[in-house]
């Protein structure tokens, strides 16, 4: 069973979001990495980009599949995890910690309320 961490927020597209003040750190969930398997390339949005919640803002490629990265909230990209770009396998090994993808400075912190709780996300993936 895929690991779903308490205390994080989730999107229906299988991203997680960790809220720290008005900053959100995001990545893909354990469920998502396991479905994709062997991630070999990742392209998060560039630093300085303004992104909108729900938009496809990057891509993640596994050996056999490609998937969009969706922004969990709106704001500006302020940091990108260079380590996972060099070694995308980190996302498979540690999706919630070392495998984080990028940080967003939120323009509308109220959007966090639209994200799923750990319990809601668990229900979402239980049907799969």
């Amino acid at each position, binding site marked *: 069973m895929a690991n779903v961490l308490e205390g994080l927020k989730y999107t229906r597209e299988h991203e997680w979001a960790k809220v720290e003040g008005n900053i959100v750190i995001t990545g893909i969930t354990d469920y998502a990495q396991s479905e994709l398997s062997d991630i070999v390339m990742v392209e998060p949005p560039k630093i300085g980009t303004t992104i909108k919640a729900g938009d496809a803002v990057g891509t993640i490629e596994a050996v*056999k599949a490609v998937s969009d990265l969706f922004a969990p909230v709106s704001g500006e990209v302020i940091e990108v995890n260079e380590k996972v770009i060099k070694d995308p396998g980190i996302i498979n090994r540690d999706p919630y910690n070392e495998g984080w993808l990028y940080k967003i400075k939120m323009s509308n912190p109220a959007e966090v309320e639209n994200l799923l709780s750990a319990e809601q996300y668990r229900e979402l993936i239980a049907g799969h």
Partner: protein
Amino acid sequence: MAKKTPFYEKHLQYGAKIVEFAGFFMPIQFEGIIPEHETVRSGVGVFDVSHMGEIEITGPERIEFANYITTNDVSKLALNQVQYSAMLYPDGGIVDDLLVYNLKDRILLVVNAANTEKDYHWILQNKKFNVEIKNLSDEIGQLAIQGPKSEQLMQKIVDFDLSQLKYYWATETKIKEIDVLLSRTGYTGEDGFEVYMAAKDGLKIWDTIFEVGKDLNVKPIGLGARDTLRFEMRYCLYGNDIDKTTNPLEAGLGWIVKFEKGDFIGREALLKIKESGLKRKLVGFEVIDKGIPRPHQKIINGSKEIGYVTSGTFSPSLKKGIGMGYVEVQYSEPGTKFRVIGKEPISVEVIKGPFYKKGTHK
């Protein structure tokens, strides 16, 4: 409800991720596509390929009949020799690609899982000569043991000097008192064997292989790595690279079409195609910078659409994106560059031969 192969319980035991494929519950991967791929390139791995179809042709005119329904020359096969071949529709489109085994008193056709029923009916429908045709698929289990250490492993359990078994030859022998058909074949580019046994004997063979293979670190391999391995060799996959809308000449399979052998289904159509010249060709290409081509993406030159991708993946051995696709014939020469249209356009270059050139098959 999908079928289970004789090895289904083993897959679960080894922690497989199971998918439905061609009507079977099959392992897509165990520890991961990349590590499994590397196991086969450097050591030895075992694939459950029991989903493949086996169709037997017996009777005095089996060679003549097999020659009529396939493109390669079955009459050239010695006893126990194996041949890669194809079956065609009268218009030259491909029914399936397959292996033809010339065995004592019978011809065995090994066909693609998803095509087994279709192929069986096609063969029955085109029955000529004095032959009998049987679909044995449900009664047969099949394992592929592939990798540079596969001979070392198999020699421990087969009472037959494997150094005498050449590439694309078979022998009917025993493993632990169980009758098996063993051939030096496979679709990975590595040295390897395929073993056919009665489905009920499958687990005993599996256990024997994994027991003696322990020292060689033998591992089970899923369909995911099977696909990346075959693709690195640029072998065609039915349903992706070849199908009823493509013919063997444009697919680069002219070498398995023997016009001189006489009549076979599709011969006339292929001769016409050959005369009028090919319009498109299946080519292999490597990504120049970054990106991974994916099936069904368009291929363009400038703004002109010149073809489409049939297979595309990340190559675990080459550590880059590779693809195959049909392009207009003037773009098929090695060195030609064009672009594949994914989310971002990917620049690629046509290459000659397999993507991976260090395979150990012999």
